[in-house]
C-alpha cells in the first residue's frame, strides 16, 4: 500500500478571478508547482490566497481564459469531487454527525472501499496522527489541535494527488501551532505529496515551504525559496512583509552611503540609491573605541536572555532594530557605535 497517489504537478495559466459582485480577487496569474513540492501562499489577509487555492481545488472556476492543469491535463472545469485533492480548513470542517473514525473513513466509504480495508486504513491514519485513542470520540469532544489532526488524517486517508491546506494552524494557540507545524512538516516530507499551504504567518511559511509565493493585492509579488525571499526580496512589499527590515535614507558619494547617522562604506553602492535596507542580523553594536563612522542612541532595549533587542535612534523616521549578543547592559540614551555588513545591504 503506497501512502499517496503519485504526486501531481499543478500549473495555473492566466487564472484571474472576478466574483459575481464585481470583486477582483485575483489578477491573471501564472504558476507552476512541481510534483511533490510544498508551496506556501503567503500574504496579508484579502490578497487572494484562498481564492487561488480554491481555484486549484476546483471550488471556484477562474475567469474565462484561465486554465488549471494537473500533470498537464486540463482540469479547469472538473469539479472538486473528481479532482482527488485533500483539503484542510482553518475551521477543521469535521462532520459533527460522525465519530473520529467515521470522519477519517468517509472518503473511503464514498469510494466504496471494502469495510475491512477501510478499518485498516483508518487505524493506520489514526496511528500516524497519534490519535488512535480518540477513534470513537464525537467531534465536539475534541480540542482544536486534535480536530486538526483528525482533519489531516481524513484528507490523507484517500491518498489524494495533492494536499491543500488553508491556514490550518491559525485557529490554534501559539504553542500548539509550533508542535503541529513540525508534525505537518514531517508529514508532508514523509508523504512526498504535492502540498499547497496558505498562511499569513511568515514564520510558518519559512518553516514549511520548499518555495514561497508571496502575494499582494491579487498579484504574485515574488516566488522563491524561503532564503531567497528573505535575503533577496524583489519588492519593498516583500522586504517589509517578511521578517524585520531596517532602513536608512541618504545618498551615495565615492563608495559610501551617507545618512544622518554617518556613513556606510559600500563599494558596490548603486549611485542613485537614496535608501538602503538591511536585516537586524546584518548590523551590530561595536565595542566602544572601534570607530565605524556610524552611530546612534539607544531608544529602547529588551533583554531576551540569549540576546538583547535594541531599538536605536539614528535620526530616521523609524529606529533601527538590532539583535545584540554583547554581554553588556543597554539603557535608554546610551550612545552606540554601529557596523553594517555590506553583504546584507539592499536597494529596492
Amino acid at each position, binding site marked *: 500500500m503506497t501512502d499517496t497517489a503519485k504526486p501531481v504537478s499543478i500549473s495555473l495559466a492566466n487564472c484571474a478571478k472576478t466574483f459575481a459582485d464585481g470583486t477582483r480577487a485575483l489578477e491573471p496569474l501564472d504558476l507552476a508547482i512541481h510534483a511533490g513540492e510544498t508551496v506556501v501562499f503567503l500574504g496579508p489577509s484579502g490578497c487572494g490566497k484562498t481564492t487561488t487555492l480554491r481555484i486549484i481545488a476546483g471550488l471556484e472556476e477562474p475567469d474565462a481564459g484561465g486554465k488549471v492543469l494537473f500533470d498537464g491535463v486540463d482540469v479547469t472545469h472538473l469539479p*472538486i469531487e473528481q479532482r482527488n485533492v485533500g483539503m484542510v480548513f482553518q475551521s477543521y470542517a469535521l462532520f459533527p*454527525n*460522525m465519530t473520529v473514525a467515521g470522519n477519517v473513513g468517509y472518503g473511503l466509504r464514498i469510494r466504496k472501499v471494502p469495510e475491512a480495508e477501510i478499518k485498516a486504513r483508518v487505524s493506520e491514519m489514526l496511528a500516524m496522527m497519534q490519535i488512535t485513542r480518540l477513534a470513537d470520540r464525537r467531534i465536539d469532544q475534541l480540542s482544536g489541535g486534535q480536530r486538526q489532526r483528525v482533519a489531516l488524517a481524513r484528507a490523507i486517508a*484517500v491518498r489524494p494527488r495533492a494536499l491543500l491546506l488553508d491556514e490550518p494552524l491559525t485557529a490554534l494557540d501559539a504553542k500548539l501551532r509550533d508542535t503541529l507545524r513540525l508534525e505537518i512538516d514531517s508529514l508532508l516530507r514523509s508523504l512526498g505529496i504535492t502540498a499547497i499551504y496558505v498562511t499569513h504567518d511568515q514564520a510558518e511559511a519559512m518553516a514549511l515551504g520548499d518555495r514561497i509565493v508571496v502575494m499582494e493585492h491579487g498579484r504574485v509579488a515574488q516566488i522563491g525559496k524561503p532564503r531567497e525571499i528573505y535575503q533577496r526580496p524583489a519588492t519593498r512589499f516583500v522586504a517589509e512583509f517578511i521578517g524585520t527590515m531596517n532602513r536608512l535614507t541618504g545618498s551615495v558619494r565615492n563608495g559610501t552611503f551617507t545618512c544622518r547617522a554617518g556613513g556606510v562604506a559600500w563599494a558596490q553602492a548603486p549611485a542613485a540609491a537614496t535608501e538602503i535596507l538591511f536585516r537586524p542580523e546584518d548590523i551590530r553594536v561595536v565595542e566602544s573605541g572601534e570607530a565605524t563612522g556610524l552611530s546612534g542612541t539607544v531608544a529602547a532595549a529588551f533583554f531576551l536572555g540569549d540576546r538583547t533587542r535594541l531599538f536605536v535612534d539614528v535620526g530616521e523616521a523609524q529606529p533601527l532594530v538590532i539583535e545584540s549578543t554583547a554581554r553588556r547592559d543597554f539603557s535608554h540614551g546610551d550612545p552606540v557605535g554601529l557596523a553594517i555588513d555590506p553583504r546584507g545591504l539592499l536597494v529596492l
Partner: protein
Amino acid sequence: MRHETRRLILLLLPAGIVFAAFFLLPMARLFFIGGSGKTGWAAYAAILTDSLYLDSLFSTLGVAAATTAATLVISGISGVFLQRHKFPGNALLVSMLTFPLAFPGVVIGFMVIMLAGRQGLIGQVTQALTGEKLVFAYTLSGLFMGYVYFSIPRTILTVMAAAEKLDPKLEEAARSLGASPWRVLLDVIIPGLKPAFISAGAICFATAVGAFGTAFTLAARINVLPMVIYTEFTLSANIAMAAALSFVLGIVTWLVLALARTAAGSSVAAAG
C-alpha cells in the same frame, strides 16, 4: 448548595404553574369527565372497539403523518434553495410563501374547495383533458392538501434559518473527499438540518392532528377525530365521549412526538 436548589425551584416556578394550570389540571379533568358518562370508563374502551372512533383516530394520525412528511420534503427542498440562491424577487417569494400563516382554517378549506372542489380548477382542467372530473376536496386528500398548504410556511422559515447556519466548509470538505451532490445532501445537509426538521415536523404533526377549521369547512365525509369530537359534543351532547376522545387524542399525539424525538435522538447518537 441549598441556595442553588432554591434558586432552581424559583426559576422553574413560572413554567411549573403554567404547566399545571393549562396542562395537568385540564388533562386530569378531561380524563375523569371521560369516565363519567352513561357507560362510565367503558367510553375509553369504546375508542378501541367502536370502529367509528378507531378509524377516525387512525385517519387523523395518518393524515397528520402524511402532512408532516410531505411538508418536510417540500419545505426542505424549497427552504434550502431559497436560502442559497438569492435572485430578484427572492424576498417577495419568501414573504408570499409565508402568507397562509395568517389564514384561519376556514379560509384554507375554502381555498382547497376552489382548487379541488366540484367547481374547482383541478376539476375543470381534468374534465377538459380527460372528460372525467377530478374532485377530491371533500375527502382526506383535500384535507391533506389544506394541511400541507398551511404547514409549509412555518416549516420553510425554520428550514431557512437552519440552512443559513450550515457551515459551507463541511460541504466542501465532503466534496473534496469525493462526495457527489447527492451524498453531500445525505451526509452533510440533511444531518445538519435534522434538529430543524424534528422541531418543525413536531409542530406540523401536532397542528395537523388538532386542526379543525379546515376539516369543518370541507365537511361531512371527513372522519377525523376533531370532527368526531365536535359531533359528539354538540350534536350528540355526549360530553363524556368527547372528553375521552380528547384525552386519548392528546396522549397519542404526545406519545407519537416523544417516540419521534427519541428515535431521531438515538439515530443521532448511533451515527455520532
